[in-house]
């Protein structure tokens, strides 16, 4: 079993009409054992900005704490909420700093731009390559299965 499959997870983010949706599973497992079924993988980074972390849980928590650190300093110095595109750069930079000893966790971002309200979703690999999505982003051990479901059911301008 590879390190990305140690804890297991399923994450999907979708763009709708003036809205975004982000869903994760809530299973926390250690290989084939299930420890809890109420585990939180989504972290709020701003009033309309959420990050879901896939992969190894300890790295997921560490990356989101370090991200919040950088985000708080950004918002204090700039005196405004961060925009999703800048946040993508922040995440990418954080992950690439560990290029040769990466975090085994990949974030999925879903949010609305603070000024325009435009929906925004993005996914990454574990060393920070961003993929900005116009329709949906899937991640985790069930990533491929979710991709199939999204391709089948997603259409543009789905409302809340």
């Amino acid at each position: 079993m590879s390190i990305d499959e140690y804890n297991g997870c399923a994450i999907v983010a979708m763009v709708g009409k003036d809205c975004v949706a982000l869903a994760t599973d809530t299973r926390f497992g250690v290989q084939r054992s299930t420890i809890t079924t109420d585990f939180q993988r989504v972290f709020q980074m701003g009033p309309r900005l959420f990050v879901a972390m896939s992969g190894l849980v300890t790295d997921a928590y560490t990356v989101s704490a370090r991200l919040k650190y950088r985000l708080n300093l950004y918002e204090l110095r700039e005196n405004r909420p961060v925009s999703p595109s800048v946040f993508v750069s922040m995440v990418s930079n954080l992950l690439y700093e560990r290029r040769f000893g990466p975090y085994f966790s990949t974030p999925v971002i879903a949010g609305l731009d603070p000024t325009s309200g435009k929906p925004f979703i993005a996914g990454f690999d574990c060393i920070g390559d961003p993929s900005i999505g116009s329709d949906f982003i899937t991640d985790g051990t069930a990533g491929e299965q979710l991709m199939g479901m999204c391709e089948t059911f997603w259409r543009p301008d789905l409302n809340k």
Partner: protein
Amino acid sequence: MSRRYDSRTTMFSPEGRLYQVEYAMEAIGNAGTCLGILAKDGILLACEKRITNKLLDEIFETEKLYRLSPNMVCSVAGITSDANTLVNELRLIAQRYQLNYQESMPCEQLVASMCDVKQAYTQFGGKRPFGVSLLYAGWDHHFGLQLYQSDPSGNYSGWKATCIGANNAQAISSLDSDYKSDMSLQEAIPLAIKVMYKIMDQNKLTAEKLEIATVTRTDEGTTEMTIIPRETVAELITKREQEIAQETQK
């Protein structure tokens, strides 16, 4: 003769004084006043703005008030560039604590950490002290709402009401007589205007020269800094001027 001992920060004078620290405090005594009042439902910070040239482009929300962390705010009096360095360092200290302990840094600990940094500049390194005094206002679950003051020496203390900057002694004696410990914010705001008006009576007090903010706890359990709009400040100043006119008539 004791001039020999004032150019090095790290030397005591024969009378046992640190001249560089005292000179730093002199610099602050010429800077714009900052007033802080601890009310039972919030903290009030009122600052005198010195830079009011109409050619200035107002891109910053505030000149002297800064958010340090989700639960703390500060106002500064002294050399602005020194203040920016200190505010930056305070923000980093608070975020490092948050990263390590996953909870907000308690107010006194943040003030104390910063003061340890400031003290270092008075004892070694050969660098001058920071020419800034700060008023810190914040909330934590240990002691609730708190108001602290720190100065270039690295000393700090907690206050119910205090003042830094120009004419601070006059303001403090005014607060001494008028402050009541169970004041509400609604009572503290006119008191702040009254004190600011008194100490600035040489240059007329106008709403452009004043920056007032309140630090309060919301029902959702967050700490908010609310800057009082200029129109409201102007109304409060007019009200105070009317009160003074009535008092002098009697």
